């Protein structure tokens, strides 16, 4: 009998997702899918609102990376108010926004790696879910857990200083920012209040996190290299000179061999290069590069893609780590799913160095905050959010109300790669498996987690995967459904 395994919910991306895996009579994986089963509607209900509300309104899409949406929308509205396409702001405004963004990258990546992903690494993906969570990490490695919490706190403090509050601030407004830093705020972030929350400590801890990962990698090379590995294209913003730049740049994509397939294009023209495919079983679209078509034009975004696309990292310590990362694949694009964590930690170090540099820059204390010019009817804002390229596109009427919004978020770009990752792991783990264990199903979530932490938050928060396993017959009729009762998943499918 055909068997269908459903993992639902995988908890939040910006809502709910589920995985279905179809096993054929012989026990092979016939089909696997990651479904995003929730409709958000932000593109619709921002319509008819005044354009200056967009950066504040659309950031409510997310509580983990609202700064990314806040800044992407603000960048789009910069274009609308005639403040240029990303490089027209005053030095103070641009640097305050960059500081906000690097604070966000730093806190979000720290949250993801330590709170969400590290339990799988520390304890193993098939360990007891009762300890495979952030509390387990705290009990097993108190120092690491404390650093993780304080690193996240530091990033949040940087956001609060630049955006007004830690979550859902208002700092970026069309044409600039509404505040710069006071000398007291700058000193507190740069030097700390006598405690460990200062810029130098963050750089040191970021290096420590990388050392932790590399040590783990040395001991578990086969798993880290081999888990859910598949070739893909890679997309990211890069600075015009090819440097890693998470705030602004041009769009570049490379294929699995490193050849340019999108060559440093102005993102105001993104619609000429991208298309989105709709599939009936998911609310999330499948974007692809128009020139390559939907079969071959899909790509990865996020830390792994960014380091595959960029030529160098413009801060010295992260550059050194980048060189080691590139050397691991002989300079070729890295297609190893779990290496995303390595790339993420290099970005954590880059963010720490960037924050320290910005805090030492007197421009962040300036008072020229806003630039405006000739009003435009449309604007596109793109930023590298923690999880990847984030596109905001708005059209604004002469009455100042938003007429159209198109948001392509990082998770959407990663839709096809995440589906492939699920398929990879399902084939490796479940094919002809006599028993389907909780660990096997968690392995599927481990692959998804490498792309997007929002999908895994509840799982680790409670130490249990909130999954439900359903058995369907070959005509799709439900035969049996069982929610995981407690720590141990018990297979009770009726063949």
């Amino acid at each position, binding site marked *: 009998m055909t068997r269908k395994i459903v993992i639902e919910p995988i908890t939040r991306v910006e809502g709910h997702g589920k995985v279905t895996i179809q096993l054929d009579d012989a026990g092979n994986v016939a089909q696997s899918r990651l479904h995003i089963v929730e409709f958000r509607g932000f593109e619709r209900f921002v319509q*008819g*609102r*005044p354009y*200056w*509300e967009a*950066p*504040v*309104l659309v950031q*409510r899409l997310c509580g983990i990376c609202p700064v990314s949406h806040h800044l992407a929308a603000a960048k789009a509205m910069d274009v609308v*108010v005639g403040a240029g396409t990303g490089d027209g702001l005053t030095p103070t405004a641009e640097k305050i926004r960059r500081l906000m963004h690097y604070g966000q990258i730093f806190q979000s990546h720290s949250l993801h790696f330590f709170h969400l992903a590290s339990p799988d690494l520390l304890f193993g993906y098939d360990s007891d879910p009762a300890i495979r969570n952030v509390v387990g990490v705290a009990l097993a490695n108190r120092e690491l857990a404390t650093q993780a919490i304080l690193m996240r706190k530091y990033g949040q403090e940087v956001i609060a200083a630049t*955006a*007004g*509050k830690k979550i*859902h*601030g*208002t*700092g970026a*407004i*069309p044409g600039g920012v*509404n*505040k710069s830093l006071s000398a007291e705020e700058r000193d507190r972030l740069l030097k700390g209040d006598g405690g460990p929350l200062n810029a130098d400590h963050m750089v040191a801890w970021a290096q420590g996190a990388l050392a932790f990962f590399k040590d783990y990698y040395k001991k578990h090379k086969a798993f880290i290299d081999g888990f859910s590995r598949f070739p893909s294209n890679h997309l990211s913003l890069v600075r015009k000179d090819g440097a890693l730049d998470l705030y602004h740049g041009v769009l570049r994509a490379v294929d699995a061999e490193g050849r340019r397939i999108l060559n440093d294009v102005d993102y105001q023209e993104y619609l000429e290069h991208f298309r989105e495919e709709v599939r009936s079983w998911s609310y999330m679209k499948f974007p692809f590069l128009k020139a390559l078509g939907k079969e071959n034009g899909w790509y990865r975004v996020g830390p792994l893609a960014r380091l595959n696309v960029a030529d160098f990292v413009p801060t010295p310590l992260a550059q050194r780590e980048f060189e080691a990362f590139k050397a691991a694949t002989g300079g070729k694009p890295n297609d190893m799913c779990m290496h995303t964590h390595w790339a993420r930690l290099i970005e954590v170090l880059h963010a720490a160095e960037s924050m320290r540099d910005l805090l030492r820059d007197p421009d962040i204390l300036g008072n020229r905050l*806003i630039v*405006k010019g000739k009003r435009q009817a449309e604007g596109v804002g793109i930023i590298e959010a923690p999880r990847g390229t984030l596109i905001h596109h708005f059209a604004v009427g002469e*009455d*100042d*109300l938003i007429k159209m919004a198109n948001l392509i978020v990082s998770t959407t770009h990663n839709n096809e790669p995440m589906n492939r990752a699920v398929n990879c792991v399902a084939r490796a783990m479940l094919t002809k498996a006599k028993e389907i264990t909780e660990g096997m199903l968690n392995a599927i979530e481990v692959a998804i987690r490498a792309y997007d932490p929002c999908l895994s938050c509840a799982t680790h928060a409670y130490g249990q995967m909130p999954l439900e396993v359903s058995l369907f017959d070959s005509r799709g009729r439900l035969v049996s459904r069982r929610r995981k009762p407690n720590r141990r998943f018990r297979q009770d499918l009726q063949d």
Partner: protein
Amino acid sequence: MASFVRFTLDGKTCLAEEGAQLVAAAKESGVYIPTLCNYPGIPPKGACRICTVLVNGIPQTACTTKVVEGMAVQTRTPELEAFRKSVVEILFAEGNHLCPSCERSGNCELQALAYRYRVAASPFPYMFPKREVEAWHPKLVKDHNRCIQCKRCIRGIHNADGKAVFAFGKRGDKVVINIDPETSKDISDELAQRAMDICPVGAIIRKGKGFDVPIGRRKYDHAPIGSEVQP
């Protein structure tokens, strides 16, 4: 020289100029009576009822009541406080008040009163009315979703000819306050700003100028509304 009268506020004997508005007289005596439709310098209306107090045991709106000799006023009985909280809750349920994306958040009197009265969510069923955003005016946006029809704008904003810039439209439960196309034609930036400032909520906003006051410097970021009069 003005003559003074003696009256009591919650049992405390106070002095005020004869004929003074009760809200203002209470403020002078260090007693906060919450208001929404009342605004200093414009004629009171008694529209929102949130300033209801007991005058000699009878409920009356403090914004339309003048102080007289021997008046005994109760401002803070449990019933009055519950009633005021209900007024706020009803206003939240009646309109579409979405504080997270409203640029008046932190500067909004309705939101500030909700915090003061600890309104977590309205117990009344939300009506989710379908309302328009009026954006044809070159300097102002009138967001009807947020309008509480306090009429402060109608009473307080006049053009250079002394004509009201805002006016009622429609009737009954469909009543709206619109920008008058004729009288608002040539309003100055200063008057547009005054219109935004006189609105207790975010129903009147200036074009192209949102969120320019950072969090931390907004009116109610640090102390609850009324705490400057009475903590």
